[in-house]
C-alpha cells in the first residue's frame, strides 16, 4: 500500500543537479498520466457512489427499520466528518482491517492494498453518503400518484424502481449529482495524502523536482478547471435529456 514509486520522468539527462535540466517537456507525460488516473478514480468512485446512494436512499425511505437506521447513520456520519480525515481513517483502517482479515485467514505477512483500489473505495464511500441524500430528496419529490399508478397496474417493486422511480426522479437529482461530481474531481487530490499518484501528487513532485512551483501548480489548476468545464458540458446535456418530459418555462 502507498508505495511511493517516483513519478519522475524515466528519460531525461541525470546530472549531479538533476532537477535543473528537467523541464515541462519531461513532466508532460507523467502529468497526463496523473490526469488520466484522476479521471479513472473519479469515474469509478462516482459509479460506485451512485449505487451506494441508490441503496442508501431506498433503505432510508423503505419500511425495514434496521436498514433505515444503518443508512441514516452512514449518511450522517460520513457527511459530518471532514473528508480529508475520513480518507486517512478509511485508508489506514481499511488496510489494517484487510491485513487482519488476511492474517486470520492464514495468509502471512502484510497485505498490499493497491492504492488505486483503496482510493476508489474511500472516495466512493464518501460519495455514496452524499448521493443517498440527493436521491432521497429526488425520490420524495416525485408526485405520490405516479408511483401509486405503477402499483395499481401491477408492477413489481423492482420494475417500479427501474421503470418509474429512477427516470422520474432523475431530473430532480441531476443538479445535485453534477455538484457531487465536481466535488469528487477535486476530492481526488485528497488521496494524494496517502501517497497516491494522481494529478495533484504528480504536479507536486514535478514542482519540487524542478523548482518551478508556480508553473506546475498552475498547470494542475488549469487541468482541474478544464475537467470541470468538460463535465459541465456533459451534465447540461444530460439534464436536457432527462428533462425532455418537463414542460417549458
Amino acid at each position: 500500500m502507498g508505495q511511493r514509486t517516483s513519478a519522475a520522468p524515466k528519460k531525461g539527462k541525470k546530472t549531479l543537479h538533476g532537477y535543473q535540466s528537467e523541464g515541462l517537456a519531461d513532466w508532460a507525460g507523467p502529468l497526463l498520466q496523473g490526469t488520466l488516473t484522476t479521471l479513472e478514480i473519479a469515474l469509478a468512485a462516482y459509479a460506485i457512489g451512485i449505487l451506494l446512494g441508490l441503496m442508501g436512499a431506498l433503505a432510508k425511505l423503505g419500511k425495514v427499520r434496521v436498514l433505515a437506521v444503518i443508512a441514516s447513520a452512514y449518511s450522517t456520519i460520513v457527511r459530518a466528518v471532514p473528508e480529508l480525515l475520513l480518507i486517512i481513517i478509511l485508508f489506514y483502517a481499511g488496510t489494517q482491517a484487510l491485513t487482519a482479515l488476511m492474517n486470520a485467514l492464514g495468509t502471512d505477512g502484510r497485505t498490499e492494498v493497491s492504492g488505486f483500489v483503496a482510493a476508489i473505495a474511500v472516495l466512493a464511500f464518501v460519495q455514496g453518503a452524499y448521493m443517498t441524500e440527493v436521491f432521497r430528496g429526488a425520490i420524495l419529490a416525485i408526485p405520490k400518484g405516479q408511483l401509486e399508478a405503477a402499483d395499481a397496474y401491477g408492477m413489481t417493486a423492482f420494475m417500479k424502481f427501474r421503470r418509474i422511480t429512477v427516470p422520474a426522479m432523475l431530473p430532480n437529482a441531476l443538479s445535485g449529482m453534477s455538484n457531487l461530481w465536481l466535488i469528487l474531481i477535486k476530492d481526488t487530490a485528497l488521496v494524494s495524502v496517502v501517497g497516491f499518484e494522481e494529478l495533484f501528487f504528480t504536479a507536486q513532485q514535478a514542482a519540487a523536482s524542478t523548482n518551478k512551483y508556480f508553473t506546475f501548480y498552475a498547470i494542475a489548476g488549469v487541468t482541474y478547471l478544464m475537467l470541470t468545464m468538460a463535465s459541465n458540458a456533459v451534465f447540461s446535456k444530460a439534464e436536457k435529456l432527462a428533462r425532455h418530459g418537463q414542460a417549458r418555462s
Partner: protein
Amino acid sequence: MSDSTHHSQFAENSQSCAPAVSVSNLHMSYGSFEVLKGIDAEAAEGSVTSIIGASGSGKSTFLRCMNLLEQPKEGRLEIAGETVEFAYSDKGRPVPVCKQVTRNLRTRVSMVFQQFNLWPHFTVLGNVTEVPIHIQGVSRKEAIERAEYYLEKVGMSDKRDQYPAYLSGGQQQRVAIARALATEPDVMLFDEPTSALDPELVGEVLNVIRSLAEDGRTMLLVTHEMRFAREVSNQILFLHQGQIEESGTPEDVFENPSSERCQQFLSSIIH
C-alpha cells in the same frame, strides 16, 4: 366473466348473471379509524355502478380496495376472476394478500385517478404501451397497435409522441383512460375522473366515459357529477360513514330515496 371456462354446464347457464364484482362484509380501517364498516355490493358484468356520497364517506377507500391499493381487514372480494378473503392475523393485523394474486388482479382491474398520474418521462404512446409490454408480456408491435386503437377511441391519436406535461388536464385524463383501456381490463375503476379539471374540460372526459358505458364496459365510478351518474349508471351506491345507506337504479336513488340521509345529500347537491 371469464373464470367459468372449467365450470360445468350447470354453472355456465348462470354465467350471464354472474356478477363481475362481488363484495361482502368488507371492513377497512386506517389504524384504529374504521372507514368501511361492512360493505356488501355487487356489479353485473357490463354494468356501470356509480358511487356517491359526502366527502369523507369512504368512496375512494372503497374503490381502492377493489384493486387492493388498500387492504381490507375483513370480508371477501371477488373481482376479475380472483377471489380474495381478508382476515386478521393473531396479532390483529390484516394477513397480507399473496403478491402474485395481487398482481394478477391488478393487471385485470385498471384504475383512472383524479390526478391522472401519467408517467412524466414517457410519451403518450409510452404511457399507453408500458403496462401491456412490460407487465402483460404483449409484443411491442401489438402493444402499439392496441395503443393506437385506444388513443383513437379517446381522440388523442395526434398527440401520441407528446409528453404529458405538454397536454391540458382533459387531454391527460383521456390519455390516462387510454392507458387503462390498453390493458384490456375486466373492470375499470374511476375515482373522480373530472374533479381536477377546469369546467370547460369536464365534458370531453365524460363523453369518453359515456362511450365506454355504451360499449358495455364494467365500470365502478366515484363521481360528484350527479347528472352524469344518473344518465350512464345501471346502479347507484350511496355511501354514508362507511356504509351503503342506499342503493338501486338511478331512478330509485335519485327520485325515491328511502334513506333520509340520502335525501339530504341529494338536496344539498342538486340545486
